């Protein structure tokens, strides 16, 4: 099995890739499963009317953020778009606080005032949660500017979609990042579609990983459906940025199983396409098979993990339904910092 071979390479420590022990491998599995179950629950709560507005699920893309986060260090920063639940969970934000924000309650990360697309946690280096396609890219570049300024050794993981990659501000950012040697890793989460428009219909032909070439930014395509491939494939890029050599661009190929947000008629792709990705490339199944085959865990352990994760998500959903709505006086607070 190809995945197995590649994974071995990862654990045998190809350039910059950490070798992973059994605990770490199990943690990857747990993190991906947590995102999957959390998102399924969020979809359910949306259907019940407990979550409103837009709600963009990360199901199918779990390996991207979990793999990349395995390469992060404390002090690094992360920024992304509205499809942000997975990033928050991967960086260790509390599922309760995330879910309660989805339901618009006081216990949420933004005290109910941000919603699904807008949450932040400086403590873990998560800087949002941004609703305007592409806008997080200069923001992430600015976070990198601050890392360099403070000489803190950190870097900014700046995630963007395959649709966002055509926004002009992305290229303005590339230019500054390259010009000033900023420690920023641009990660295209290429899930093949921006809403109902496929990459082929939105982007001039060419390799998205080379979109930074004109600025001298190195780029690489990565299989984002296998978490070990993500870790192995991205390690070199993270090294490059961390070594102070400037920005790097990754085109991580992934897939979203669900609609763009909750209301998506899904006419732009076939059911067979989705079913095939689920059956053949599911990131959680792939890791599970691999870990079972290698004896990292057995079926019993797997059941325990499933149960633990379900409990965490169940608790989050409970909390999110019982945390009260914000006090009406909250309407008027947080507009400006009171001097």
């Amino acid at each position: 099995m190809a995945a197995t071979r590649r994974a071995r390479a990862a654990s045998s420590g190809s350039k910059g890739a950490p070798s992973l022990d059994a605990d770490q491998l199990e943690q990857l599995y747990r993190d991906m499963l947590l995102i999957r179950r959390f998102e399924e629950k969020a979809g359910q709560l949306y259907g019940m009317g407990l979550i409103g507005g837009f709600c963009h699920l990360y199901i199918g893309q779990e390996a991207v953020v979990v793999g990349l986060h395995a390469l992060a260090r404390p002090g690094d920063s992360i920024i992304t778009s509205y499809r942000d639940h997975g990033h928050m969970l991967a960086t260790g934000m509390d599922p309760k606080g995330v879910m309660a924000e989805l339901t618009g309650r006081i216990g949420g990360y933004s005290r109910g005032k941000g919603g699904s697309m807008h949450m932040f946690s400086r403590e873990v280096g998560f800087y949002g949660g941004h609703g305007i396609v592409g806008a997080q890219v200069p923001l992430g570049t600015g976070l990198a500017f601050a890392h360099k300024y403070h000489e803190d050794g950190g870097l900014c993981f700046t995630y963007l979609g395959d649709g966002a990659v055509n926004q002009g501000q992305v290229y303005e950012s590339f230019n500054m990042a390259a010009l000033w040697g900023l420690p920023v890793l641009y990660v295209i989460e290429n899930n093949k579609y921006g809403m109902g428009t496929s990459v082929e219909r939105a982007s001039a032909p060419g390799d998205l990983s080379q979109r930074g070439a004109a600025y001298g930014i190195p780029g690489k395509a990565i299989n984002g459906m296998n978490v070990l491939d993500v870790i192995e494939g991205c390690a070199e890029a993270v090294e490059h940025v961390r070594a102070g050599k400037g920005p790097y661009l990754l085109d991580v190929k992934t897939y979203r199983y669900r609609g763009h947000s909750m209301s998506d008629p899904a006419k732009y792709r076939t059911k067979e396409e989705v079913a095939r990705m689920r059956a053949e490339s599911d990131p959680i199944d792939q890791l599970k098979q691999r870990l079972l085959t290698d004896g990292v865990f057995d079926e019993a352990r797997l059941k325990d993990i499933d149960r633990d994760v379900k409990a965490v998500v169940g608790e989050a959903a409970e909390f999110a339904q019982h945390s009260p709505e914000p006090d009406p006086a909250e309407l008027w607070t947080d507009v400006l910092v009171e001097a």
Partner: protein
Amino acid sequence: MPTPILMPALSPTMEEGTLARWLKKEGDAVEAGDVLAEIETDKATMEYEAVDEGRLGKILVSDGTEGVKVNQAIAILLTEGEDDSALDAAVQAAQSGESAGASGVIPAPGDAPTGQSPPPQAATPPPAAAAPEPDAPEDDEPVYDKTRRQSVREALRDAMAEEMRRDEAVFLMGEEVAQYEGAYKVSQGLLAEFGDKRVVDTPITEMGFAGLGVGAAFGGLRPIVEFMTFNFSMQAIDHVINSAAKTLYMAGGKMGCPIVFRGPNGAAARVGAQHSQCYASWYAHVPGLKVVAPWSAADAKGLLKAAIRDPNPVVVLENEILYGQTFDVPEAEDFVLPIGKAKVERKGDGVTIVAFSRMVGVALEAAKTLSAEGIEAEVINLRSLRPLDTATILRSVRKTNRLVTVEEGWPVAGIGAEIGQVVMEQAFDWLDAPVTRVTGADVPMPYAANLEALALPTADRVAEAARAVCYRSQA
């Protein structure tokens, strides 16, 4: 306890839908992820997947039922170990749950909803059917005897289709406008009729395609540029203002820019601060632009057609919540409304209420309440924000001597601020009370349902303001 399967909410603004078709029959086994039924919202037909496993015990809402409310029980799922004997009680519970749903409690399947804080849905806007009927139009508004019931969405589509048939130079461009038929389904059927030369899907590059549209207008075309929502027009505002609005002036009148920028503006429902903003006062500020904000489907059709024919850049501020509401639209071949002319939707001599877009409906609702208390409000639908029909406003204020303005946007330098100033300058001696504004709260839009409801003008707040300028307290 068998689990009721509830009508799902499938979009931010969905309140009811059609149960198009069941894909499972009573008695069928159900796995999580199986498609149970197809549900039609006003935007799309979507598959409804099971979240629990079990056996479909009873179907409560049959194929083809329209107007099924979100959260109403549509079937009963029997889970492991339960048989049909559990059904009767469950059906009864589900049906009483329905009336609970109607009174605002969300029944959570398999989970008693007791102790839950007020449901987020409380803040969702009034259902489509609640759009109040305006009175007979003012004398100077022509009366159209033949009309057809249409949604705002259909009226906008028809306006574009008619103008595209009429003028080869008109084309539509924007994100998801062609194959997807509009993110909010406004361009339904246009790609099929006009082809991909004239209905153009763009990448997500607002700055780029707004500028490209302006260039195309310079080159002799008549672009309709759709912003998926006006929130994203901020990416492109430099071209709307610097390139489109100012060119005629900078060219000493030698070259202008006939272009339409259109899309939904203002708050939808629960989409948070970056996606809920009213741009009325932003664009109305700019000389060289025209700005319209339709309320009814007739407004939408007549004003959009006028905008497309206009030789100037016109910003058309639509509203997502109105898209699904229906109104009478004149059938006349060449029904076009003049830009710059307001419409008196309801006559009265007690107080003038001026509103635009969705707030016209809110103002009419308030007028009903006030009427029951003996205050007859005159409700003016501005339709156009630049130019502003100050004559109609002043005429009304000179009659009622009191004015309340209503807008979703922020108060500072808003449309109401402008109207108040005009009235002070030109009808100061007629005023019996200070002009009062009802506006969106001066904060970014909060996501929480209860806070969002507090942030937007309501009929109650409008009625309260009207009483205040009449020096009356609630009857």
